[in-house]
């Protein structure tokens, strides 16, 4: 498969989103019941994410520049592809906002239902935590980013 520089650059973004989801999301998944202040090693994790992101993109784009020395022109076709893929990303983002609102509402509703059962322990455990919100938002961001980039890649290959 013969890939252009732009297509490689999109692949770099897709790989980053997938690797980020596989490496860092499990940490937030494990800590979703906690509040941010109680999460073990949160600062270290954030520093780790920032440093690994910088290293990944520096290396990836350096390799890309070495492989494709020639500068590629950015033209109206790229603008059209970008606008189409960002539009899709925006639509998924809007849709995911509804999912997020539904998630928050269901948490509160279930908590109230547990309150009615009188089970205090379950009631106390069933909370909408900072960790839960952060995890949910990160999952949505990773999902939107992957779909948007895949669509962008598809358009570059087919349009």
């Amino acid at each position, binding site marked *: 498969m013969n890939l252009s520089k732009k297509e490689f650059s999109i692949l770099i973004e897709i790989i980053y989103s997938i690797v980020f989801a596989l490496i860092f999301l499990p940490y937030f998944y494990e800590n979703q019941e906690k509040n941010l202040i109680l999460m073990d090693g949160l600062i270290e994790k954030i520093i780790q994410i920032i440093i690994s992101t910088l290293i990944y993109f520096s290396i990836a784009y350096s390799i890309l520049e070495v492989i494709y020395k020639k500068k590629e022109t950015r033209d*109206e*076709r790229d603008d059209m592809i970008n606008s189409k893929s960002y539009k899709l990303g925006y639509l998924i983002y809007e849709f995911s906002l509804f999912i997020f609102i539904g998630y928050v509402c269901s948490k509160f509703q279930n908590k109230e239902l547990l309150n009615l059962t009188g089970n205090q322990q379950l009631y106390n455990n069933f909370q909408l935590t900072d960790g839960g919100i952060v995890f949910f938002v990160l999952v949505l961001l990773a999902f939107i980013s992957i779909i948007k980039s895949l669509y962008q890649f598809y358009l570059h290959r*087919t349009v």
Partner: protein
Amino acid sequence: MVLKNNLKEIRQKNGFTQEELGTDVGVSRQTIISIERYRYKPTLELAMKLAQKLNIKIEKLFYFE
């Protein structure tokens, strides 16, 4: 009605490669390929630049079928 073009034939007749024509009108080689394969419809500005570069009337270059 589908918008088609004679870009490939006229480009070859004028002795341009896709890369050269793209550079002259300020677009990438991929964009020229896409136009020639009828996958991408250029803007009026690009269509006019192409016609001007290939020294042909725009309606001879692009046509409906």
